[in-house]
């Protein structure tokens, strides 16, 4: 489904991604781990089409189409979904209006009729229940004043609503309490499907207890330095990143890992 070849990207002249290669097939769940600042979010943002990052070489295809050629909104309509590490607050645009506009933009793209307010409301209520968000949140500004955990649940809510082909989850598990982690994991597991791929960035092995990945990759200094099965995550938890020869930022990463062990 997704094929990333020798992807290089930079921001403000500084190279962040230094040759990423990754193949993801439909139905698979891939986890990306790695120290702070290694480029995980950059990869996620580049896939979603954030033009703050410049792709300097390499290619990305999704279902054999050139993804990098497409505008962000086209990618989204073709099924790319990014759950942001830092979801943006947009006061003045209600969550409801936002999601309905989004759902209808997708439907329009597929040649389906728009959802009217009542139909949409019904769907939104159901899904907000599924991620344990009070429907009152729908009336508030997009992410406005949401707690960290509420923002993450709101991202999963949108993923469930939009049913993407490729869901990229950037630290959707960070900052969640134990119950919220369960809710979010259940949400992600509900997304698992034969025709859908999931790419999730995480620092925590504990997420992978709930969502068992098919593959785990370690991203360090803009490259994937190691790939393996889920047992790789356990090994990282035990040993940190140092044994992989990763020098900078291990402290932050291993402290994050040991936090998760507690």
């Amino acid at each position, binding site marked *: 489904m997704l094929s990333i070849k020798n992807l290089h990207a930079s921001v403000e002249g500084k190279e962040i991604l230094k040759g990423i290669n990754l193949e993801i097939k439909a139905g698979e769940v891939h986890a990306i781990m790695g120290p702070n600042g290694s480029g995980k979010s950059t990869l996620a943002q580049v896939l979603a*089409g954030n033009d703050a990052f410049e792709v300097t070489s390499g290619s990305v295809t999704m279902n054999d189409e050139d993804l990098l050629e497409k505008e*962000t909104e086209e990618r989204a309509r073709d099924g790319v979904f990014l759950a942001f590490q830092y979801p943006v607050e947009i006061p*003045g645009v209600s969550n409801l209006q936002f999601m309905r*506009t989004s759902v209808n933009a997708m439907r329009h793209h597929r040649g389906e009729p728009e959802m009217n307010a009542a139909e949409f409301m019904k769907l939104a209520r159901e899904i907000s229940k599924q991620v344990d968000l009070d429907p009152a949140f729908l009336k508030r500004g997009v992410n406005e004043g949401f707690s960290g955990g509420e923002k993450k649940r709101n991202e999963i809510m949108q993923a469930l609503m939009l049913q993407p082909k490729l869901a990229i989850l950037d630290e959707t598990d960070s900052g969640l309490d134990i119950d919220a982690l369960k809710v979010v994991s259940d949400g992600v597991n509900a997304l698992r499907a034969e025709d859908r791929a999931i790419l999730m960035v995480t620092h925590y092995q504990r997420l992978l207890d709930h969502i068992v990945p098919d593959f785990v990759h370690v991203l360090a200094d803009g490259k994937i330095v190691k790939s393996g099965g889920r047992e790789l995550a356990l090994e990282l938890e035990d040993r940190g990143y140092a044994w992989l020869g990763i020098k900078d930022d291990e402290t932050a990463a291993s402290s994050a890992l040991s936090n998760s062990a507690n």
Partner: protein
Amino acid sequence: MKPAPTLLSTAFLHPAGQALPEPLLALRKQRGAALVDMPMPTRKTENWKYSSKYLKLTDEMATSLPATGKTGSALAVPGYKVVFINGVVMPEASEYPDLDNIRIQRFGDLSDAEASELVERLDSTLDAKAVQFAGLNTARFEDGLVIRLKPDAVLDQPLFIIHEVTADSSGSAFPRIFVDAGRNSQLTLVEEYISSGQEAVFVNSVTEFTLAEGANVTNIRLSMGGENVQHIGATGVTQQRSSRFESHCVGFGGPLRRHDLRVRLEGKGAECKLNGVVVTQSTQHYDNHTTIEHVAPNCDSEETYRNIAADKSHAVFNGRIHIHPDAQKSNANMSNKNLLLSTGAEIDTKPELEIYADDVKCAHGATIGQLDEESLFYLVSRGIGRREANVLLTMAFINELVAQIPVEAVRDTVQARLNQFFDQTFQEA
């Protein structure tokens, strides 16, 4: 190039229309005489600093536009209606009640005694030095509307005043309104400035409100005129004890648009709420100057203005709050936020606080910014098109103010005009 005139051309000092009671004719004449040396604003005139270059009055514009036509009568409004065409009331196009406790009269229909009483009060809400052009209106009005609410009178529906200029030839119009809101009376007055025709015209309007104790007045002012209309308008308000004034000004740009809004809180416990939205595009201009005078103690003022400037347009906001020495326990809040939709647009904002009392709460803030890239990316990453994402974020900037306009039909008019603006400003990527 001809140098800009330093004085108001005397061509502007010849009023037309004699169908007014003698006291009003005398007032007009007296004001006209006082304006013979009226300096034209220049860049050096402090309150015209950013706007004088847009003011281009020619002698052809000095002639009053003919008081005929009835385009405005076609407008359906959910309430009472008075149609002015070129500054003159069109009774046949107007529909309003004639009640014992609410008198709505043309200046021309006043008795000499009533006119004398009005003369005493006209211009009383506006400081002639600060609002130079209000005096010109008094020197030139050919008609006007006086609305008097007796104590406890409540007008049951909004009163719409449609101010239309028919610009089939070059000329000017001087609409005038005076509202005398008696003790505990209530009124919602909607003023809509529109235009037809293409010739260059000048509109110089003045609306005054005097609110007696406990009166409650809402004024909605829509400035919708065309690309050929230079408009200088003023609204003056004086408020007695415990009265409440609420204003919603929505303005779309033009070659020159200037609105001075001045509120004097003269009685203890009076409060005012002033909301403003300005939208400019192409090479348009709009300038809002507001002044709130806290004269008496325990008064509240709350002011919220938003400017949106696209293309190469220019918006100006000057908000002055003056807290007098006796105005202890004043509560004044002013917020002005500005959105530039293009690098060629300009917005000048200046909050001015003068505080002479010590026990006051006064907060103000002004910001200028652009649409947030991160927010845009978030929206488009959910499949929302660029155009729609821009519209959502721009609307988000003014939503709250549009939603607060208390008359649905006005909100619809504003939204329709905004949609037009969005169509012209934002394209699909």
